[in-house]
């Protein structure tokens, strides 16, 4: 576990792999989120304010992870870690396009390329997490 700490911000958010998580997808998501938060105080602030569990399902590879936001910590679990507040399911390629920032979950859902569900009490969780996770144009070469 690496604690991401910003010198100019009090929003410290640790991104950890759940002890029983062994899938590559969980490891990739954990490293990715850690790197995304490490370089942006704005992302850390937004991550700190998110609460809930989001399931991500790569339907063509039968692989899923749950990303759980609890304020100062984000945990990445293998599989669907119930109870979920929201779920995004789609092909590996469709999910990659979301992370690349080339697609929007709402529009892709309406087009039938992915399936997004969320509970009323946390209706905007998928959009908030997508905004947190998607690559900005300057994030990577």
């Amino acid at each position, binding site marked *: 576990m690496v604690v991401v700490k910003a010198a100019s911000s009090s929003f410290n958010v640790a991104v950890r792999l759940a002890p029983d998580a062994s899938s590559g*997808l969980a*490891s990739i998501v954990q490293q990715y989120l850690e790197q995304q938060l490490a370089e942006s105080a704005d992302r850390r602030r937004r991550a700190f304010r998110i609460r809930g569990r989001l399931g991500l399902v790569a339907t063509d590879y039968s692989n899923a992870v749950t990303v759980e936001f609890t304020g100062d910590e984000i945990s990445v679990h293998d599989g669907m870690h119930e109870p979920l507040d929201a779920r995004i399911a789609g092909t590996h390629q469709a999910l990659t396009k979301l992370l*690349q920032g080339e697609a929007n979950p709402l529009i892709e859902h309406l087009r039938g390329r992915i399936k997004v569900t969320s509970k009323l009490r946390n209706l905007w969780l998928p959009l908030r997490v997508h905004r947190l996770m998607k*690559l900005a144009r300057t994030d990577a*070469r």
Partner: protein
Amino acid sequence: MPEIYSIQWYEALKDLLNRNPEVEKNSPRGRFHVLAIINGDTQSPYLALGEMRGFVVEFVDGKCLEYAELRSCPPRKGFNFIFEMSASVFEGIAAGLIDLVDAGLKGTIKITGDMRILIRHAELVNVIYDVYAREVETLWPHGKPSSPPQNLSVAG
């Protein structure tokens, strides 16, 4: 046709990577050092349990400048990406039996590095898999894998 794990095989892979326009098109700009660690296992006829092979691949602006086996495993620091897998998984990929993306998602290949670059250039994974599994002609002196290995793990 070069034997798997031979210098000629690495050179053939390097040439194929450099001749494929999709590699250059989908690669990140700049210099990238990739370390691959292959751990021997009980299912591989090429690398026994307890043995290890490491090779380094260097990309500069989408061109492969180096693809070489290492005599000893170098410090991991300094590599942009590290891929670690068992020999039977690596050979299964080279034989076209194991899907590279599936192995990455399931964790039979352990990937560490800058995931933002990996996600930004995700299409490169498919291109490289095609080179390994379909384009390079590999000689298998101890037999070509005919089915995916069982009980896959990174450590072998």
